[in-house]
């Protein structure tokens, strides 16, 4: 494919090309203009000199182009050029279906995340209490660990203190636990459209692992005392139980269509009678099965 084109050598025999002739008048005129302006900040003499140069420049320039534009003939010199590519292979990108973005047609509603969060919150109690029983021989230990973190009076507690029952700490623990479970469930529900295919795997396992990792790195800063007492292995287990339960509950919910299933015109927000359902107060609704 490589080819050398010596186009210029073919025509080199004594050829000349007419080009505009070099001239000094533009620089004279330009310098004159500048001097004329410079006179305003120096002395009038400069402006007068500038005016003279401008006049001379104009006259000279006009004589360059009238009556005939002045040219000079430049001889054509033979110099070989190579127009070739080392890259002979040409590839074309073939567009296939995998190059298109995918949007889910259906997804789980946000409320399913909250339901899952509540269910997970109940399920999570089991591993937490098991941990308390096995490791600390008291089911109140994990409760106090959570509830105690919420009250400022808890400093320098011994494990024995943490293992005994406290009404206030229990109430605070229930409050923190339920609020957190519902909020995380809400977050999970909001994330669901982004993980449409495997809600149990992605939301139930990956998210708790990430969540535990973030807490692990930050807990020392947020609450160093609590960080001292947490058993991270068990913590992770109860997080995963929470996540898996929430994921299972979510995956049993009914899916709802996303806006991707709507016609383009409806997604644009254009009111198109005949295409979209009319408002219930505006007349008889369209039959759902027609859709």
């Amino acid at each position: 494919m490589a080819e050398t084109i010596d186009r210029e050598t073919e025509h080199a025999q004594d050829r000349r090309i007419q080009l505009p002739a070099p001239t000094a008048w533009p620089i004279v005129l330009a310098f004159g203009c500048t001097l004329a302006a410079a006179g305003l900040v120096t002395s009038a003499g400069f402006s007068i000199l500038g005016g003279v140069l401008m006049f001379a420049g104009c006259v000279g320039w006009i004589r360059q182009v009238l009556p005939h534009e002045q040219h000079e003939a430049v001889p054509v010199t033979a110099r070989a050029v190579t127009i070739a590519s080392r890259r002979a292979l040409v590839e074309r990108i073939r567009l296939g279906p995998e190059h298109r973005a995918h949007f889910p047609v259906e997804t789980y509603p946000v409320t399913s995340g909250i339901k899952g969060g509540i269910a997970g919150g109940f399920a999570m109690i089991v591993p937490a209490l098991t941990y308390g029983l096995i490791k600390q021989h008291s089911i109140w230990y994990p409760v106090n660990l959570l509830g105690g973190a919420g009250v400022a009076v808890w400093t320098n507690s011994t494990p024995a203190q943490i293992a005994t029952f406290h009404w206030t700490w229990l109430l605070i623990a229930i409050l923190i636990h339920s609020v957190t479970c519902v909020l995380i469930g809400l977050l999970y529900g909001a994330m669901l459209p982004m993980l449409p295919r495997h809600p149990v795997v992605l939301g139930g396992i990956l998210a708790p692992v990430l969540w535990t990792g973030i807490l692990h790195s930050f807990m020392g800063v947020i609450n160093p005392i609590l960080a001292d007492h947490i058993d991270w292995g068990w913590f992770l287990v109860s997080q995963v139980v929470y996540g898996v339960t929430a994921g299972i509950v979510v995956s049993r919910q009914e899916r709802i269509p996303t806006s991707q299933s709507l016609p383009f015109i409806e997604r644009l927000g254009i009111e198109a009678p005949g295409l979209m359902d009319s408002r219930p107060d505006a007349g008889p609704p369209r039959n759902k099965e027609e859709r």
Partner: protein
Amino acid sequence: MADRTLPIPGSLDATRLRDAALLEWLHSWVVTVDHKKLGILYVLYAVFFLLVAGTEAMCIRIQLVVPNNHFLSPELFNEFFTMHGTTMVFLVGMTIIFGIGNYLVPLMIGARDMAFPRLNAFSFWLSASGGLFLYFSFIGGFGLYGMGSAPDITWWAYAPLTEKPFTPGHNTDYWALSLIVMGFGTLGAAINTIATAFSMRCKGMTLMRMPLFVWLMVVTSGLTLITITPLTAAQIMLVIDRYLGAHFFDAQAGGAPIVWMHFFWIFGHPEVYVLILPAFGIASEVIPVFSRKAIFGYPAMVAASVGIAFVSTTVWAHHMFTVGMTSVGNTFFVLSTMMVGIPTGIKIFNWIATMWGGKIRFATPMLFCTAFLFQFLCAGLTGIMLGVAPWNWQLHNSYFVIAHFHYTLTGSFLFCIFAAFYYWYPKVTGRMLSEKLGKWHFWLFFIGFHLTFDTMHFVGMLGMPRSIYTYEADRGWSTLNFWISMGGLIQAIAVLIFAWNLIRSYLDGKEAGNDPWDAWTLEWSVPSPPPAYNFADDPVVRSRRPLWDLKHPDDPDWKYEQ
């Protein structure tokens, strides 16, 4: 640059011969009307002033490196930051784009010269002598403080500071008069570029086959005609105020300083696009060649360029949110500023789509263009932040603004200009720039740039105002300012490496041949450096990539382009 026909030293009667040859060589440059020689003159002139204005920037940074510093006097500090801004915009930015455009536009469209070769020479010499006139102010008078009469009124020169009672010396006059002179030179260059692109194209080169760089030079030139005109008008009004006692900008006598602001920014905002659009053109030439793919979405790129130019003329008062406009005015300029994001977004996506799936080779020009993509995106994002009026009220006149527009003019414009140097230097001189020094230049400049200008955003958000001479140690700005100055030092070293590379590679760089990058536009089809007549025979093109068609006769572009 020079033709290499100087006689050998030491030969008989060499001195006289050499002097005569040198004189003749100099003479040929002074009287030239060749677009290539004028382009080189433009670029050399711009590089010289890049070093000058860079030195001024370094002095500013030394002054601010520690609190309560007195490296410069307050008067000289004012002169330096005014001259840094004025020089970079008018003497470096404007001249370098028209220099590169001058050199490349005729070559890219298959023409033998610009449409008006003598006007071309006149435009250059007007710009050049205007610049010398501006710098003459340093020595041209003792001025008010015995510091010379260099302008000390900031590069945007707000009235009423520029009125006679407030700046009695000649500082303001030097600024206004020299910029008027240069402005006419710029107008000449712009008219010439438009005429060349519209009337000198070779056979087959339809408008929609023009290289994108030519398109962007056309758009830039059109924008220049729109913007330089109000600036020149305002400067003439200022000169009339100062010399003939008019009161255009004198509030006490019924004039309005705010009129100056409107005049200045209806120039000043599009001016940024005048500079950045040719940079877009450079990126649009370099990225496809080093990605080994045709540019993605050529018609969209053309439309977006014209769109940017159009929108950019409607946004100027976003520089004036703190002036106290009506809320309708504020809202209009917020929304129009947001609109700029649409065509620029199209461009960024198209460049990325060009790179996508390509065989990318990170030679120095491509490195600069890749960094440009990222930095221009950041500049656009902080631009949108500053375009929101309430945010602007908080950060107006702070270092955050400085950081934003240096991201545009250094991080985007200058990076593309450097890319252009590495890409087209072989065409201009016949020799390659050293890749090794180029990589050093790129990485040092990249690191220095980010150290300086990333940090500047933070010092701005901490409340440091622009243009201040010094600051107290207890403001919490000291450490950040130290690092900003260190970044400046690194950039200065990088620029010196670049300057050294320009000189060294000219003397003994690798021979380039006519087409070192395996590129596709017409300038690579002629020898390097090109002969005076550019093309011995008029070229004929059938697609946007004429050299691709020659190199791949089995698979030419014209089979696919509409």
